């Protein structure tokens, strides 16, 4: 190709450098994607994790009535600290299918002595009661949030959703979606040990 000497041809080295740009950009993006894939494996990168504005803060003030017939006290903001150990707040509903998947893990935590507090979200009291009778009741305290007002203050994404509150009453962790066995062993149990 001999016609490379057009009058306005820029400096050939500049041109060469410019032609390298796509490769460099693609390479950089490739490294980034690789780091993301690695992070997916180790859990440090999670596109589905939904951040909560409440992490590092005290939960909003609230007070919920108990569930009639469940034989557990109601739940209010004051109950979330002064337990001497971290507590879990679990929003659930009888109409939510993932809650059924999650329930055995809540039962396991409860049997291990972790205080698990429940909030029945937009659920008719008799349905919540039936749900707990069928699947067991892991909740040390249980509040009824029929209108979903408290859930709005917490910034609930959907049910089920679980919060970890440390000894001093600060929210440390939020999990939107069911707590599966993997979540339990990989995320929740290390956190419980760390904040114990």
């Amino acid at each position, binding site marked *: 190709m001999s016609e490379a000497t057009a009058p306005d041809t820029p400096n*050939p080295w500049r041109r060469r450098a410019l032609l390298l740009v796509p490769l460099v950009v*693609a390479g950089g993006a490739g490294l*980034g994607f690789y780091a993301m894939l690695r992070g*997916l494996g180790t859990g440090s990168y999670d596109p589905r994790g939904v*951040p909560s504005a409440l992490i590092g803060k005290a939960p909003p003030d609230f007070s919920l009535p108990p569930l009639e017939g469940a034989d557990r006290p109601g739940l209010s903001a004051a109950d979330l600290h002064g337990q001497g150990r971290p507590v879990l707040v679990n929003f659930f509903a009888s109409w939510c299918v993932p809650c059924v998947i999650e329930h055995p893990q809540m039962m396991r935590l409860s049997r291990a002595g972790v205080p698990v507090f429940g909030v029945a979200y937009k659920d008719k009291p008799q349905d919540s009661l039936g749900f707990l009778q069928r699947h067991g009741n892991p909740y040390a305290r249980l509040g009824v949030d029929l209108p979903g007002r408290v859930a709005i203050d917490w910034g609930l994404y959907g049910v089920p959703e679980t919060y970890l509150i440390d000894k001093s009453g600060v929210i440390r962790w939020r999990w939107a979606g069911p707590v599966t066995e993997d979540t339990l062993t990989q995320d929740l149990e290390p956190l419980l040990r760390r904040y114990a």
Partner: protein
Amino acid sequence: MIPELGHFALALALALSLAQAVFGLWGAQRAEPRLMAATAPLAIGTLIATGTAFACLMWSFAVNDTTVSAVVQNSHSAKPMLYKLTGTWGNHEGSMVLWVLILALCGGAVAGFGRKLPSTLQARVLAVLALVAVGFLAFILGTSDPFLRVWPPPMDGQGLNPILQDPGLAFHPPLLYLGYVGFSVTFAFAIAALIEGRVDAAWGRWVRPWALAAWSFLTLGIALGSWWAYYELGWGGYWFWDPVENASLLPWLAGCALLHSAIVVEKREALKTWTVFLALLAFGLSLLGTFLVRSGVLNSVHAFANDPARGVFILFLLMVYVGGGFALFAWRAAAMAPTGVFAPLSREGALVLNNLLLCSIAAVVLVGTLYPMFADLILKQKISVGPPFFNSATLPLVVPLIGAMALGPVLPWKRARLWPALQRLWWAALGALAALLLCLALEGQRIGPALGFAAAAWLILGAAADIADRIALFSRPRAALARARGLPRAAWGGAIAHAGLGVMMLGLAGMGLATDRLALLQPGQSASLAGYDYRLDNVQDVAGPNFSARRATVTVTRNGRDVVVLTPERRSFPVGRMTTTEAAIHTTWLSDLYVVLGDERDGGAVLRIHHNPLAPWIWFGAAIMALGGGISLSDRRIRVSAPAAKLARGEVTA
């Protein structure tokens, strides 16, 4: 037995592709005619083998063979036959087989239609296509075997996501893949050109139809997906700037730039380096989309179920093809200097502007799509980039793009003067101004829709002015019809595609004026919106083939006269444990009356009512754009693709 046959066919395709790649590259390098001649039959062989594999997979879905894992996870005996068949590509494994099948079709087409290509060029193009096929076949066989058996077989499948049981979505992936994979051919041509170190008019003439075909299919595919979202998801929206939607828009933008710059290569032998770059970019962005959707790095409603091992494999393929392409580009592209010189104000100049603007839009979309992911990775921050960013960042680029779209085609090549061009367009400009003022007068201070209507008028009238000018409709009207017949189809296609975007703009502007309301109605009560009254008659239970539903009957009246009875539904699918909303839509072409059934409480039902002016024109416009692409594709010069034909026939339009 049949699944094993399919599995064997895939492995055979891999072996044939490998041979095709080696023979093509080696033969072209050594100028060995026998090796090069073997590539075309090998491409046909690969096509037959992948076609067989795909047919075997489809057969497994059709007979609901529950020993095949992909069938168990994605199908169910109670599903209608159409969705059993389309379910073949409704999942990760099957869609990859479809991907490779379309790639093999492209290879077969190059082998079949490319006999007039220089033999080294054809051999290299086929070899590069085969290299791409080798990577993806290895990916399928290694990480996502569609024919994996399960034993003992379960009683029945686990069903397909009911949202996906829809004709619009069933044919969305094949069209989209025809677009994505079509760009593999332009990519192969670009790699072959870089290896040979030469790009000329004949190369441009070869690349353009492929870019055009891929772009037209991609247009249809994206439009179908958007239409599906509009009627099925029940939000009344049509484009959400979701990362996966963006992933399909990116190759579309790059492909659109490519098919325009290929014109400059073909006619004027300029912009060579740039065109090669766009050809690499268009396919690179297609692969990027594949990676984003299937690797799990994105959070999107569209994403497939993922597995990081697959992600690493696709990333490896992405890096080999795109990184390899760009490395070759950095090494070889400096050799390709332009021969054609042109003034800034000329047809070439307008096409350069088009390219710059399209690529800037692509850059904005790319950054907006990837930024949240990289911010999460590097800054550990969750950021979401949503429609407000995309709308406001692309608007200042779209406005000049549309301005230049009507102007470009009326400019002559090499050197132009602005004034004569503007004289040809004065009535289009007048129409645009009238549309702008009319919208402002009728709808108040709504600058977005007003700009949209102005853009629509400018594009449609501009395309009409272009055609009128070419056939001398006003200066010599008597022979205009004859001239219209003699006008190359490429000129017609271009004008129609530009007008198609105008029609789409009409729809977008209309949707800017959409209104909606939420109403809790007891049976017998009604709510009114935009001059229509919606009366809820009743809500009933109905049973479908594999779902049960609540169906509302809503009678729509206007000034006391019945217009239509709408029946929105809420369906629940017991197998997938999912509920979907079926919006009821009545289109008058001037607007869509769109009703969604929401929750029922206290004996009444919540209805969400939308009034969407001009909504159908969005997708109608996209179909016109694709039609323009098709007409341009049927141009005799492209079909014959002989460089000499152009000189012999004496070009009028250029």
